[in-house]
């Protein structure tokens, strides 16, 4: 046998071996390490708060600027409402306001160039609302008259709409389109689309007859396209998990965990801000908090407990000596039931498309979700078969199992929304959120993936 062979044999057998580490060694090590600074978790929460502040700041700034642009200094904002007969009335907010929409428009036009941009916003809003009212009446049976007289007449007075023959309503809408500037057309487009859909749904007119609205309305890249919106939502959540062995086969352990962990209903809350393009496409970003629940139910019928009774005495030299008086080993059933909670904070970035249909709208959206925090509290069956805590680091039976952050996930949902106010919508949105990476630590023998399902109920406010 060569000497080299001896070296090689020892190297192959001993170089990468592992040994069982005595318990308690980590405790001794960590007492010699510097105290844990809070910078890690602080920086994480710092970014969460910064992002939330940015979202809120942007929203607030937009709202303030929007308010300044829409409300003239003379306080001539209009508040409109339909009366019980479905006829439109313009209600003055302040005594100085004009009596109806057309008068407001006329007054604004006389105001000269200085006030023109401010009054234009008021005029567009009033016109949009009139068109929406026409659209609403289109769906009523008595209003389903054939489309006639398009492009004839010059009705620019809003009160004409109160006459309500379908043809005159069409004339009013067409006139608005013809007389409008490109910017105004962009502003009116959502209302015009609604009108067109309502008319076609009621069997009034054809696509060709409404072509002028479509061709004249599209104006990409202009100011005033689209709108911002804010979502507030919440609802129940439910998570499923899949577990696989990481390095060595631990299928028995996986089975043990499956039989001791039971899913329970959780919940989620969230807020989003979005930009909605008139083409129907939108982008949304927000923050979502989710609490997922589980019940850990452990029962061991052959558990033993050792009770050692001791007494402390002094020996002849004055030293303290513990003497064992009695040792009793009892066998029984150990039952441990814990309600585990998992808290997650995620940042979803979503892209989607929405189809409008009168007061209803339907959308689909999907995108990446970034987990910024994953906190949890509870118990778990450890690989050695003994239950222990996965959250209490001070506990003697602590088992590090889960990561503090879960990284990238994907989110997908569909929703239906209904108009419940002038700028307010209610929506219901089932969603699925799948974690792309394992939620367990690399040192833990099980690779655990998570998919959460939720049903959101929320309100959406357009800005």
């Amino acid at each position, binding site marked *: 046998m060569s000497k080299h062979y001896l*070296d090689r044999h020892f190297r192959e*057998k001993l*170089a990468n071996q592992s*040994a*069982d580490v005595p318990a308690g060694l980590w405790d001794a090590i960590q007492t*010699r390490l510097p105290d844990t600074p809070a910078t890690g978790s602080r920086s994480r929460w710092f970014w969460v708060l910064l992002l939330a502040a940015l979202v809120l700041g942007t929203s607030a700034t937009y709202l303030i600027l929007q308010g300044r642009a829409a409300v003239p200094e003379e306080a001539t904002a209009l508040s409109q409402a339909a009366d019980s007969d479905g006829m439109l009335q313009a209600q003055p907010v302040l005594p100085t306001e004009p009596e109806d929409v057309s008068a407001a428009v006329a007054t604004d036009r006389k105001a000269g160039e200085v006030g023109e941009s401010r009054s234009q916003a008021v005029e567009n809003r009033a016109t949009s609302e009139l068109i929406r009212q026409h659209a609403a009446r289109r769906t009523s049976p008595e209003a389903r008259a054939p489309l006639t007289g398009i492009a004839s007449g010059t009705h620019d007075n809003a009160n004409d709409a109160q006459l309500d023959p379908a043809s005159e309503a069409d004339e009013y809408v067409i006139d608005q389109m013809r007389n409008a500037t490109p910017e105004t057309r962009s502003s009116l487009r959502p209302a015009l689309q609604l009108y067109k859909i309502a008319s076609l749904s009621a069997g009034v007119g054809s696509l060709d007859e409404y072509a002028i609205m479509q061709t004249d309305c599209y104006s990409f890249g202009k100011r005033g396209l689209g709108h911002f919106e804010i979502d507030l939502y919440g609802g129940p959540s439910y998570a499923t998990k899949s577990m696989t062995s990481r390095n060595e086969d631990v299928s028995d352990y996986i089975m043990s965990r499956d039989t001791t962990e039971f899913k329970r209903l959780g919940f989620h809350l969230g807020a989003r801000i979005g930009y909605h393009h008139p083409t129907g496409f939108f982008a949304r970003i927000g923050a979502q908090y989710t609490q997922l629940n589980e019940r850990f139910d452990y029962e061991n019928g052959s558990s033993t407990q050792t009770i050692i009774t001791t007494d402390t005495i002094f020996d002849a030299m004055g030293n303290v000596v513990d003497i064992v008086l009695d040792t009793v080993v009892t066998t029984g059933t150990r039952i441990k039931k814990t309600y585990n909670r998992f808290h997650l904070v995620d940042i979803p970035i979503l892209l989607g498309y929405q189809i409008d249909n009168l007061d209803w709208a339907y959308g689909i959206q999907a995108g990446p979700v970034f987990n910024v925090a994953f906190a949890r509290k509870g118990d778990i069956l450890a690989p050695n078969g003994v239950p222990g805590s996965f959250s209490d680091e001070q506990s003697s039976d602590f088992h590090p199992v889960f990561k503090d952050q879960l990284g990238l996930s994907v989110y997908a949902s569909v929703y239906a929304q209904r108009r419940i106010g002038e700028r307010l919508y209610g929506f219901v949105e089932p969603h699925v959120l799948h974690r792309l990476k394992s939620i367990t630590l690399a040192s833990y023998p099980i690779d655990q993936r998570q998919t959460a399902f939720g049903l959101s109920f929320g309100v959406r406010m357009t800005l």
Partner: protein
Amino acid sequence: MEYTRLIKRCKEGNRKAQKELYDHFAGRMFFLCQRYAKDQTEAQDMLQEGFVRLFGNLEKFEGKGSFEGWARRIFVNTAIKYYHRVRKHNGHDELGHAEAQKIDPDALSSLHEQELLGLVQELPEGYRAVFNLYAIEGYSHKEIADLLEIQESTSRSQLVKARKLLQMKIHNLQIVLL
């Protein structure tokens, strides 16, 4: 395996991350310490000291090369520190006359890791250190001479004597087994 994020969190002083890193490497590093130590108690001390040094020097790890290789060097250096401490107190050990013995390759292959580890642990301090560094870690005699503060020729001769001693012990085991 990717340790970048884990190491980053350890550098921030995150105790959970440190525990995770410990759980991941403790077994392998404890075996390494056992090879250099004369008994379990000393191996535990080495492991403890090694991890304290590892976390204390983590800032110096720049992510170039294998983290496990870097960690092993920390523990080997810790073991050598113990070697110097023992040598300072006990002086240098020398083997008398050990004759190289013929070993049956099958008998050698039949020895388990724990038996081989026991053989290494029974070697005198100096032989054990040189044999570990040269045969198992792959250091050169020059590197070993620098680390152990001995002559290169001493490193060579100690390696030869360590091999002879191991061969003798394995031979004796063969006799016992037969």
